[in-house]
C-alpha cells in the first residue's frame, strides 16, 4: 500500500533533494532541491505581492508550456495562500476575454509572448522563468528570493481555502468554470494513488495530453509529484518520441494519440502502464496500442465537473465501465447518468450529467452517448453554439451554423460552416476566391477557438436552411457538404489511356434521393465523371458534342470499389469509357468530341 504525499508536503525540506521531479527535453533532470528552491522563491514573491482583491488573495491564471514550471507555480500559489486558475489554453486573445470577464486577476507563465505591455484593460503576466525585475510586473512588486517558505493555510486534513478553477466549454457556448477546493483535488489524488500508484513507481511518467485541463494536471503532474516519480516537462507529440524517452515509462494519453500510432515503428517493450481518457477508445485502437506498446491501455471515463468516474482495462473489458471506489451512480428513465462522488463539492454532492448509460452486471454500466449539443472532437468538448457565435462575430458574416462532418474514411470528425455573408463579405469572397477565403476564415478564428473547432469547409448561403418548424435543419446542412467526386485510390495515365480506381463512399451527393431504398450511381453521373477525368487528353478546343453509344449492364452501389478505364482516340475524336467492378463490366460507352 502506498501512502501518498499531501500536496503541501511535496516541498518538505526533510525530503531528499536528489529525488527526480522532471526531465527536460535536453535530457537534464530537475531534482527536488532545485525545484523546491524555485517554488519557495516564487511563493515568497507571491506572498509579498500586492493582492488583487480585498480578501487579500490573487487568482493566478497558470499558462505554461513546460509542465515542471506549471508544477512550480501550482505549489508556489498553494503555499502563498492564493488561488489557482487553469484557463484551459495559452491563447492571448482568449485570455484577454477571460480577464475582462473577471475569470482571474493575473497570469503566471513561462511564455514570453503572453508578457505584453500591461494596458488598463489587459492582464498582467509574470514570466516565472525570467529574472525578477521589481516594479516592472504590476501587481507583483517588491519581490525577492530567499524568504522562508510560508506555511500553507491549514493542515493536510483541512488544507484551507485555496481553490483551483478549471474552464471547459459549457452547453450554452460560454466557457464554464468548475471550481474545486484543494481538499477535493487531494481526495481525488489520494484515490488515484491507491488505485493506479502501484503501477507507477520506478517509472517515468510521459504525457501526450495538455496539462491545463484536469486529466493532464492530475495524471501528468500531481500524481507523479506525490508519488516521487519524475514526469516529462514537455508534451510528447509524435510516436517517434516515445522511442527516446527514459525507460521504463508510463504513458498518460488519449485516443487522439493512440489512434495515430505508426504501425511501421519498432514495438516498445518498456511501457509499464497506459492510461487513456478524454473520449472513447475504439477496440481496434486499444488492440493496436497493446501490440505496439506492449501493454493494453486502461481507460478512464470522467469529466472536469465530476473528476474520474469509472475505468476499464481494455485487455479484459470492452463494453462496461466500473465505477471508481466511492463513486455511486444512477440512471433516470431516459438513461441520464447522475453521480455522487467524494470528489464533488460538499454543498453539491449530486451531479446530473448529459451522458446516457444503461446498467450492466456488478454495478458497472455501459455508456450510450451524449444528450446535448456539445460535440467531442478528438477528446475536446466543442460547444457548437460557441463556434457559431464566433463566426457571427466576424466582419462580413451575418449568420452562421456549423455541422459535424466526417472525412471519406470516416475516421475523423470536423466542422463545416454554413455562412450567410453580407454585401461586403460576398464582394470579398468574389475577389479572393473560395480557398483564400477559407484560409482567412481559419486565421480569424484561430485566436478564439480550439484548433479542432475551427471549420475546415464552408458554404455561403442566402439563409440558414430550416425545417418546417423553423428549426435549423442539420441534415439539410450536411447535404450541402456532400462530396461530388468518389474517393480516388489510383490514377494512372499511359499516353491516350487513363485508368482509375475509386471507392463510392455512401455520402456521395449522387446517392441522395436517387432511389431512397436502393441507391445507385446515376448514369448521367457516370457519363459526367468519364468526361471530367478524361479532360486532359483531348486537344485544347475540343469539347463534348454527343453520346455515340452507352450501355448500362450492372448498377453501381454505395461502397463499391470501381475501376474506370478511359481511352482517347485522337483519329476519330472519340472517348471510350468502361466502368467495372471486380472485373465485371458495369457500364460502357463512346462519347464524341468536336471543336466548339
Amino acid at each position, binding site marked *: 500500500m502506498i501512502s501518498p504525499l499531501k500536496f503541501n508536503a511535496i516541498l518538505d525540506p526533510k525530503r531528499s533533494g536528489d529525488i527526480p521531479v522532471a526531465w527536460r*527535453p535536453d535530457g537534464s533532470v530537475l531534482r527536488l532541491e532545485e525545484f523546491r528552491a524555485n517554488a519557495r522563491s516564487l511563493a515568497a514573491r507571491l506572498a509579498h505581492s500586492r493582492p488583487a482583491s480585498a480578501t487579500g488573495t490573487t487568482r493566478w491564471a497558470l499558462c505554461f508550456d513546460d509542465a515542471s514550471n506549471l508544477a512550480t507555480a501550482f505549489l508556489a500559489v498553494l503555499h502563498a495562500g492564493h488561488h489557482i486558475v487553469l484557463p484551459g489554453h495559452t491563447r492571448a486573445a482568449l485570455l484577454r476575454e477571460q480577464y475582462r470577464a473577471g475569470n482571474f486577476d493575473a497570469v503566471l507563465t513561462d511564455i514570453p509572448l503572453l508578457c505584453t505591455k500591461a494596458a488598463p484593460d489587459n492582464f498582467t503576466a509574470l514570466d516565472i522563468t525570467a529574472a525578477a525585475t521589481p516594479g516592472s510586473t504590476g501587481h507583483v512588486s517588491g519581490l525577492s528570493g530567499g524568504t522562508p517558505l510560508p506555511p500553507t493555510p491549514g493542515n493536510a486534513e483541512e488544507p484551507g481555502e485555496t481553490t483551483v478553477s478549471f474552464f471547459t466549454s459549457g452547453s450554452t457556448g460560454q466557457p464554464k468554470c468548475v471550481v474545486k477546493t484543494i481538499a477535493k483535488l487531494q481526495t481525488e489524488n489520494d484515490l488515484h494513488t491507491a488505485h493506479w500508484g502501484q503501477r507507477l513507481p520506478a517509472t517515468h511518467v510521459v504525457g501526450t495530453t495538455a496539462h491545463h485541463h484536469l486529466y493532464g494536471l492530475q495524471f501528468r503532474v500531481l500524481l507523479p509529484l506525490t508519488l516521487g516519480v519524475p514526469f516529462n516537462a514537455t508534451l510528447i507529440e509524435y510516436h517517434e518520441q516515445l522511442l527516446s524517452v527514459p525507460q521504463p515509462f508510463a504513458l498518460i494519453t488519449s485516443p487522439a494519440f493512440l489512434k495515430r500510432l505508426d504501425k511501421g515503428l519498432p514495438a516498445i517493450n518498456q511501457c509499464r502502464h497506459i492510461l487513456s481518457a478524454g473520449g472513447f477508445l475504439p477496440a481496434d485502437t486499444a488492440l493496436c496500442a497493446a501490440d505496439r506498446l506492449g501493454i493494453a491501455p486502461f481507460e478512464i471515463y470522467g469529466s472536469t465537473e465530476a473528476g474520474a468516474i469509472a475505468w476499464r482495462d481494455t485487455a479484459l473489458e470492452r463494453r462496461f465501465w466500473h465505477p471508481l471506489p466511492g463513486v455511486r451512480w444512477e440512471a433516470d428513465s431516459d438513461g441520464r447518468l447522475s453521480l455522487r462522488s467524494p470528489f464533488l463539492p460538499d454543498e453539491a454532492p449530486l451531479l446530473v450529467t448529459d451522458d446516457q448509460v444503461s446498467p450492466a452486471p456488478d454495478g458497472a454500466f455501459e455508456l450510450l452517448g451524449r444528450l446535448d449539443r456539445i460535440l467531442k472532437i478528438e477528446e475536446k468538448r466543442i460547444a457548437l453554439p460557441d463556434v457559431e457565435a464566433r463566426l457571427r462575430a466576424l466582419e462580413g458574416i451575418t449568420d452562421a451554423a456549423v455541422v459535424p462532418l466526417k472525412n471519406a474514411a470516416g475516421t475523423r470528425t470536423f466542422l463545416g460552416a454554413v455562412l450567410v455573408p453580407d454585401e461586403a463579405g460576398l464582394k470579398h469572397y468574389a475577389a479572393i476566391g473560395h480557398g483564400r477565403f477559407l484560409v482567412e476564415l481559419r486565421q480569424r478564428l484561430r485566436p478564439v477557438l480550439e484548433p479542432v473547432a475551427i471549420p475546415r469547409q464552408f458554404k455561403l448561403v442566402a439563409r440558414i436552411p430550416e425545417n418546417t418548424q423553423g428549426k435549423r435543419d442539420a441534415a439539410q446542412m450536411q447535404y450541402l457538404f456532400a462530396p461530388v467526386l468518389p474517393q480516388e485510390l489510383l490514377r494512372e495515365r499511359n499516353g491516350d489511356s487513363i485508368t482509375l480506381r475509386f471507392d463510392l463512399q455512401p455520402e456521395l451527393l449522387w446517392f441522395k434521393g436517387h432511389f431512397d431504398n436502393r441507391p445507385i450511381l446515376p448514369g448521367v453521373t457516370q457519363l459526367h465523371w468519364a468526361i471530367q477525368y478524361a479532360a486532359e487528353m483531348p486537344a485544347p478546343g475540343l469539347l463534348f458534342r454527343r453520346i455515340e453509344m452507352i450501355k448500362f449492364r450492372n448498377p453501381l452501389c454505395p461502397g463499391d470499389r470501381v475501376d474506370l478505364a478511359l481511352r482517347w482516340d485522337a483519329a476519330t475524336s472519340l472517348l471510350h469509357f468502361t466502368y467495372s467492378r471486380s472485373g465485371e463490366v458495369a457500364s460502357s460507352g463512346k462519347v464524341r468530341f468536336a471543336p466548339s
Partner: protein
Amino acid sequence: MNPLHDDIKKLIIETLNLEGLTPADIETDAPLFNDGLGLDSIDALELGLALKNRYGIVLSAENQDTRKHFASVSALADFVASQQQSAA
C-alpha cells in the same frame, strides 16, 4: 516551380479535408501551424502519417527537428528531398 511543393500541398489539402483549397492558396514559405493554415497537433500527426506513407520518410525522435521540418511546405519538401537522396 518545384513539383514536390505542389505534391505536398495537394497531400495537405486531401489529408486535412480542406475542401475548395487549391495548391496556389497555400503559400510555400508560410507557416503551416499557428498563423498560416492554422493546422493543429492532430493535423501534424495525420500529416506525418500521410508523408510517411507517400514518401517513406523517417521522422526524427527529436521534437525540435520535427517541428523544423513541418514549419512550411518548403521546409517539408527539403526534408522529403533530403531523405530521398540519402535513401538513393
